[in-house]
């Protein structure tokens, strides 16, 4: 099998990651719920994951809120911190758009969209212009549809000049490019553990800047193992946000995945470049977006369509030949609207485990479909 759907989830997970999870399942009790060895071991595994993520992404361990997904992290951040006028981009994933839409429907937020297309300078300019009167800015770091990386540090700087809190969806960039809470200055960065980091499914995190001290409302309340006699959630991070039993074995494996990512490096652009150069010159194939502003401004995601071929049918054709890509709207209708791909598209997303040989096979099969178009 050839797997080019790494923007959905990084695949395959390594033996090291699976071994870490299996070992933890054999030893973990409920973390933070008692003083016996299995409970303490599980708490150690959670803390180890917080430490590893904190070191990798530039924050403090207690500011790493472990979640079952980036979507839940984003919901916690958006519903906990955002209010009044919220600025967001024209290319958001539903993990950002739907919580914001829900807040707008309930009268808790007014939404203002900025156009996230064009050069970095154009994006920063439009973003800055939209900040007047805003309370929070929530935007994607790298698009899951065409891979475009937004100029994070410059945008955060502009937001802070206007006193606007920043919440970043880094689901697609974490594990692909260098990303630091501290260096970017972002107030909150939400990540997926299972995509570019190749951790287990069902892992994510909300990373809070140590200098960000705004109080957050919680969206989930319940047992935390501490202050059980209090009716309210504890104020301390991370327990303020983490109600219920945590999946300690999965987070033990996520820590291992991050260590492995550090050792293997973040990958390079050779496969991405080969795919882009081949597809953009292929007859009957249209690449939407593509790294037109330089490879350093994109994560390795390509969106394309084949003339007269429905994207789902093309995906099915490839799947039948053992090649995994994703078709449709990628949970990002705003991005497809911005790109003019209202009928969806075929997405190829490269991971660090892919090879140039696999890219050759994919290119040949796409060429076969494109050649069949009359």
């Amino acid at each position: 099998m050839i797997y080019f759907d790494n923007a959905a989830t990084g695949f395959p997970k390594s033996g090291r990651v699976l071994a870490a999870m299996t070992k933890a399942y054999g030893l973990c009790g409920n973390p933070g719920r008692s003083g016996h060895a299995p409970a303490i071991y599980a708490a150690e595994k959670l803390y180890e994951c917080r430490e590893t993520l904190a070191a990798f992404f530039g924050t403090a361990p207690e500011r790493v809120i472990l979640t079952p997904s980036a979507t839940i992290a984003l919901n916690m951040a958006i519903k906990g911190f955002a209010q009044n006028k919220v600025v967001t981009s024209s290319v958001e994933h539903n993990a950002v758009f739907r919580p914001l839409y829900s807040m707008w429907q309930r009268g808790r937020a007014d939404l203002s969209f900025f156009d996230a297309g064009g050069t970095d300078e154009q994006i920063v300019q439009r973003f800055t212009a939209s900040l007047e009167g805003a309370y929070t800015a929530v935007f994607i770091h790298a698009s899951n549809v065409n891979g475009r990386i937004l100029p994070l540090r410059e945008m955060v700087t502009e937001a802070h000049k206007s006193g606007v809190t920043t919440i970043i969806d880094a689901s697609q960039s974490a594990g692909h490019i260098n990303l630091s809470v501290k260096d970017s200055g972002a107030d909150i960065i939400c990540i997926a553990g299972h995509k570019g980091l190749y951790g287990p499914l069902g892992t994510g995190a909300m990373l809070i800047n140590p200098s960000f001290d705004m109080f957050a409302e919680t969206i989930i309340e319940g047992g935390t193992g501490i202050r059980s006699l209090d009716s309210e959630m504890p104020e301390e991070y991370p327990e303020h946000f983490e109600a219920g039993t945590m999946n300690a074995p999965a987070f033990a494996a996520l820590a291992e995945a991050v260590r492995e990512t550090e050792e293997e490096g973040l990958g390079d652009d050779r496969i991405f470049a080969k795919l882009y150069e081949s597809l953009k010159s292929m007859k009957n194939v249209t690449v939407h977006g593509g790294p037109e502003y330089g490879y350093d401004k994109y994560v390795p995601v390509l969106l394309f369509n084949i003339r007269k071929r429905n994207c789902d049918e093309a995906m099915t054709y490839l799947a039948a030949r053992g090649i995994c890509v994703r078709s449709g709207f990628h949970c990002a209708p705003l991005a497809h609207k911005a790109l003019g791909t209202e009928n969806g598209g075929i997405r190829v997303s490269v991971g660090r485990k892919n090879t140039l040989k696999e890219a050759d096979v994919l290119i040949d099969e796409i060429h076969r479909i494109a050649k069949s178009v009359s």
Partner: protein
Amino acid sequence: MTICMNTNCIFVLSSVTYVMKAERLLASAGIYSTPVKTGEVAKVRGCGYGLALNDSGSNMVNCNKAKAIIERNGINILGVTEAKDR
């Protein structure tokens, strides 16, 4: 600053996360400790966790040194109790 008066002190901290953090900070200074959930901890905060200095390193000097390290790193100590039931 409160001075530790016992030789088997347990630092009561606000969460198991801070217990883990303090444990690592102390270990890096050569002071070894163990996360505990004892009656002494419960008296201070209801359900909670503490960090007990290990017997081998537990003396008054270490207790005060440990307290200073924990506080210097911004970790709030809710109380210091004695390990009676360890």
